[in-house]
């Protein structure tokens, strides 16, 4: 399968890869969750990771901002570079890395604070703004970019957990944007949302593509097909196939990909 993955890579070589993973293996204790994964993430595109439950796609996503470091007993092998720099190098500060590589989680997880404080938290801890006015601006632009400003501008001091599920998820996106990351990782951001809220988030993700590189893990193949330019299919801890979304969904090279996207397993 290694071979196939390598074969598909050249087709998207025309876009510069911002993240490049080489031979990445991840172990949780004795259990191997990822096996020699190779993947290039093109800048300013949406890359979706699909595959059945437990295939390692979330694990891979969490390697990219070193969230796996917080998991006890987790070990990452191989090489992941961001803008050519190894993110697992000893001199890299993983906290700063997470500021550059933002993350949106499966379940909306706003802090139980005001909407304003939710968005302002990142800039505050990183000292991104000089004064209150600047912070206000960052908060408002972030909310605007996340398409939430219109709905909440009269109640910025209301608590973030009081919003609807879709609004909460957009608040989480705004919160991630406020730190001005280059890359946003999204771990099934719509799985807890209804179809209408999902549509809004998808719209938003497509808008964000202009300025951010987005990697999204999703269970919905329609979603992957709708929004992403590049898709990687994970299975049993390996990448089975990776390629242009259109090509992968219309003309998969691997039987397992074919089987998964047509719903025969997964």
């Amino acid at each position, binding site marked *: 399968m290694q071979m196939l993955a390598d074969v598909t890579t050249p087709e998207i070589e025309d876009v510069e890869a911002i993240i490049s993973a080489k031979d990445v293996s991840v172990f949780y204790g004795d259990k191997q969750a990822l096996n020699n994964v190779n993947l290039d993430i093109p800048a300013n595109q949406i890359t979706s990771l699909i595959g059945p439950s437990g295939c390692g796609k979330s694990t891979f996503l969490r390697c990219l*901002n070193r*969230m796996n470091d*917080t998991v*006890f007993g987790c070990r990452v092998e191989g090489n992941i570079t961001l803008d050519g720099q190894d993110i697992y190098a000893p001199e890299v500060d993983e*906290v*700063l*890395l*997470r*500021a*550059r590589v*933002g*993350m*949106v*989680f499966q*379940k909306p*997880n*706003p*802090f*139980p604070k005001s909407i304003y404080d939710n968005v302002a*938290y*990142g800039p505050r*801890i*990183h000292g991104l703004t000089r004064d209150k006015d600047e912070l206000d601006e960052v908060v408002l632009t972030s909310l605007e970019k996340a398409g939430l400003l219109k709905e909440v501008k009269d109640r910025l001091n209301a608590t973030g*957990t009081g919003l609807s599920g879709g609004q909460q998820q957009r608040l*989480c996106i705004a*919160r*991630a944007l406020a*730190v001005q990351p280059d890359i946003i990782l999204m771990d099934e951001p719509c799985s807890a949302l209804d179809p209408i809220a999902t549509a809004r988030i998808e719209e938003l993700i497509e808008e964000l593509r202009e300025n951010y590189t987005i990697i999204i893990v999703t269970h919905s193949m329609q979603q992957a097909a709708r929004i992403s330019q590049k898709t990687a299919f994970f299975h049993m801890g390996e990448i089975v196939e990776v390629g242009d979304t259109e090509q992968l969904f219309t003309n998969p090279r691997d039987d397992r990909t074919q089987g998964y996207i047509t719903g025969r397993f997964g």
Partner: protein
Amino acid sequence: MTDTSTPGKKTDWASPQLLAKVAQRQRAEKRFRRLGLSAIVIALAMLATLLFSIAGKGYSAFYQTRLVMDVTFSEAVIDPKGTRNEDDLRAAGYGGIVRDTLRETFPDVKSRKDLRELFALVSKGAPMQLRDMVLDNPDLIGQTVPVDFIAGDDIDMFNKGFIPRDVPEGDRRVKDMEIAWFDQLDAVGAVKMVFNSTFFTSGDSREPELAGIWGAISGSFYTLIVTFLISFPIGVMSAIYLEEFAPQNKFTDLIEVNINNLAAVPSIVFGLLGLALFLNVAHLPRSAPLVGGLTLALMTLPTIIIASRAAIRAVPDSIREAALGLGASKQQTAFHHVLPLSMPGILTGTIIGLSQALGETAPLLMIGMVAFIVDIPGGFTDAATVLPVQIFLWADSPERAFVEKTSGAILVLLGFLIFMNALAVLLRKKFERRW
């Protein structure tokens, strides 16, 4: 649906066996509900009995008998030199004035023995009472004014009905003669029942009518302050470290097991530890709230750590991930998010730990806080006692009048405990969050 192996065979839900089974299940449920209800009723009845018996014995401690008599503040006795010098006023023979007052009120009493009984009508604290009045207002000298004397404890007991008139004279502490004097005073309206402010404002005393719980309350207060200042920060920091930072290995497992074991160690053992450590090694002052507080802090620490860890663990991981994902460090995550969110639980645990410490007697016996201390402690190193120890001391005293003091002090202690636990409940209710 899945049962395709026996097609055609349908369960007859109305068959006698199945109906019997249903009836049996319903009976079992009813039986269990009745058992549970009766358990609660029994527990409540016990609690009510306890409270009523203590309140019934203790409420009279909040009242006190006063005997009103006209006192002549004779200048010749108090201030013969007429200097109004405070030291002279303090040193004057007020006992004589008290005796003169009683002699004047009951001119028929002549014999030495009778006079001694007569003088016992009022409290031994009566001279001090007069002295304080004079020091407060030196203009009293030379005047004759009615004074509310605190009655002696036997008369107080008699007035409260604890010493019945109809038992033979030899069997009661108040003799017929004293009853006659009391009746004489009562007839002219000179016997009053007033709120017992002495009980709430003075320290311990050998004389029940002069004994109060303020000394013990202050001692408990200073002790608890020390306990809180030591155990809260250390406990919360330990809990945060263990939950958020410590690696999971054999060593931290061992620590965890030991903390849980410490919470179950009998409190007297902590008292011995305090004795060995704080008194014998560190040479801190004996009987001091400082040492008591340190000892109780040792005892409270495991409770606070366990409660805090539970509260910290209850903060959902999604909050931690959210903060970490934004580039917050572990420490920022812990202090900006996890700690504030777990604070209600931590405070609840702390208050419960402190209320345990407030009710603790045994460890304090070991470090000398069981001494008879009259002075109100003014600081952390003064000799002091605490409420439960005061109760223990009074319960040990032979005088009848200490029975009501004991119950009264228990009521006060229970009041404090209920207040603290109510505070814990309120905090939890107020800051409870939904995720």
